[in-house]
């Protein structure tokens, strides 16, 4: 779990300058920006267009194409829950439903850094406003599912209780 600094055009500029020499530099730059700031702010579009000699439309098109790039700051914790076939075979959809009904957390709920999908009544007594659970398709842990990736750590044989814990804990227990 990382606290990210606020977006800063000058440091964005220097991150771009450090990587612009690479062949096909756009993705490495976008990853570096997201690693630094937790998201890729729309303010970077003209900077990147200038650095890579592209139109703003092309840069915007690239950023928006990929699921990974966020355009607003992430919540404090992001849980990437696998919902592909191998995890479906082990009941990942039941985990999704449990999260909604028992904990009021909607997977892929909208908004960032705000309460996610509090459309269901729930009485678990926890504030989930700093967590987002997002769908991902396959984490390569298909023999030990259901799986999730939490702050870069892979977690296998996930069950409903463990997932709920992850939504409230501050650190990954391993």
């Amino acid at each position, binding site marked *: 779990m990382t606290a990210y600094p606020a977006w800063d055009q000058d440091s964005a500029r220097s991150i771009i300058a450090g990587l612009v020499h690479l*062949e*096909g530099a756009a993705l490495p730059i976008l990853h570096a920006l997201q690693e630094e700031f937790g998201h890729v702010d729309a303010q970077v579009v003209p900077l990147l267009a200038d650095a890579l000699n592209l139109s703003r439309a092309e840069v915007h098109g690239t950023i928006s194409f*990929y699921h990974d790039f966020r355009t607003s700051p992430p919540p404090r914790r992001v849980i990437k829950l696998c919902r*592909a*076939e*191998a995890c479906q075979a082990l009941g990942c959809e039941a985990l999704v439903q449990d999260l909604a009904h028992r904990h009021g957390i909607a997977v892929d709920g909208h908004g960032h850094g705000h309460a996610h999908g509090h459309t269901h009544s729930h009485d678990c007594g926890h504030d989930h406003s700093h967590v987002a659970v997002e769908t991902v398709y396959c984490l390569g842990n298909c023999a030990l599912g259901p799986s999730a990736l939490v702050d870069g750590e*892979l977690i296998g044989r996930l069950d409903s209780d463990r997932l709920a814990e992850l939504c409230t804990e501050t650190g990954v227990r391993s």
Partner: protein
Amino acid sequence: MTLSPDAIRIFVPIDAAALSVGADAVARSIAREAQARGVTIEIVRNGSRGMLWLEPMVEVATPAGRIAYGPVAARHVAGLFDADFQAGGSHALRLGLTEELDWMKRQQRLTFERIGVTDPLSLAEYRAHGGLAGLEKALALSGDDVVEAVRASGLRGRGGAGFPTGIKWKTVQNARAEQKYIVCNADEGDSGTFADRMLMEGDPFLLIEGMTIAAIAVGATRGYIYLRSEYPHAFKTLQRAILKAETAGVLGDSVLGSSLAFRLEVRLGAGAYICGEETSLLESLEGKRALVRAKPPIPALQGLFGKPTIVNNVLSFAAVPWILDHGAQAYADYGLGRSRGTLPVQLGGNVKRGGLIELAFGISLREIIEDMGGGTLSGRPIRAVQVGGPLGAYLTAAQLDVAMDYEALAAMRAMLGHGGIVVFDDSVDMAKQARFAFEFCAKESCGKCTPCRIGATRGVEVMDRIIAGTERPKNIAVLRDLSKLMTDASLCAMGGLTPMPVLSALNHFPEDFDRPALPMAAE
């Protein structure tokens, strides 16, 4: 790290699957407990042997061979020391000699021969276990001879399409250009597959060696590994391995002291399944929206930045060092028909014993799932098996006697793909699986061609109507028509193969498309 020579070597896997069930905590406990007891040990973080249901599987080196214990949790560690496990002592978790375990003995491990055996980031161990022998032999041969060896081995692309690797390499070799590229497709996005990940985490130098052999064979000087961002552990391992290979002169201006240069970089994808399609991957490497390109021109002639490019899967490159070292014929002696060599099969989903199995082509699905896998984890009957990822067919429990080979599966309108097998028990609803196939395609389509972009969304809608019980015969007719259109008119396999899981579900499990409609819960 300096160690006394009498240190006992204890192996705790660092493979992400092992980490996902607590391998780090086990390694920490073992270190603590050994220190408290004054036992001198060396903990080696190896790759996984592939018996994933036994992870974390700890091994101890003894004079008789390595002895396995598993699955070990941190709470077992004190008891293991009490049982003198560091000398192979008896314990409830003791599995026996690793090499003698049924799962291991049934396999023919060529590509995965070192995985789980060695420290993935020790180049010295890599060499000691036969690493770099293939590259050394390749350096003594002409590029023509290297390409011919790959062709004669019968190796076909392990990414799924099964195109003969030697022919692709020959095309790039014959192309004239001032710059050629070697690109590894490590965007292993198919659910049910993890062989690439295990290989990159468990034996990264093997991939580096295979790509380097490709480079010197066709005259390429730059290479990229395009790795999916869902694999952060593999990313770190590859970066460290490349750095070590550069320091040791395996990569760089002079490959193993020769006059040939090869530089390699890992690039991270950004969560787009379509980037596993080779032309989409190339667009992404170039820094663009990953829109699929029309072929021709083929990437072998106009690939990355328009230059001749070999694009191969991780497992294809990783098979090459063995072929060069042991000879093309030795590799071709495994397998049958037009499927030569070995295939790393990945068994997952609802299965008791899941993991990585490398075998010559030809074993039946049933042997893999029932004999090796032990049936379902839930203990309920097997109902459906999806082979070859999200674009592969669903088979019934009665169809499992088919051999794992490209042609045998194709003959029953299924596909081998990247060798992933996902098992479902009888709680599966195949109409929902068919709906998911379209939903996945709708989310992951690059959007370039209409049959895929629009067809997938229409497919979700049609499935919703069928599930809701609205004019089922008419909607099933629409479903078949839509599937035919997507198959025939999509630009790439994403739209072209999405109908495969859909139609296999419809044809093999028609009862699931004719269930009483349930009131749909609003989602």
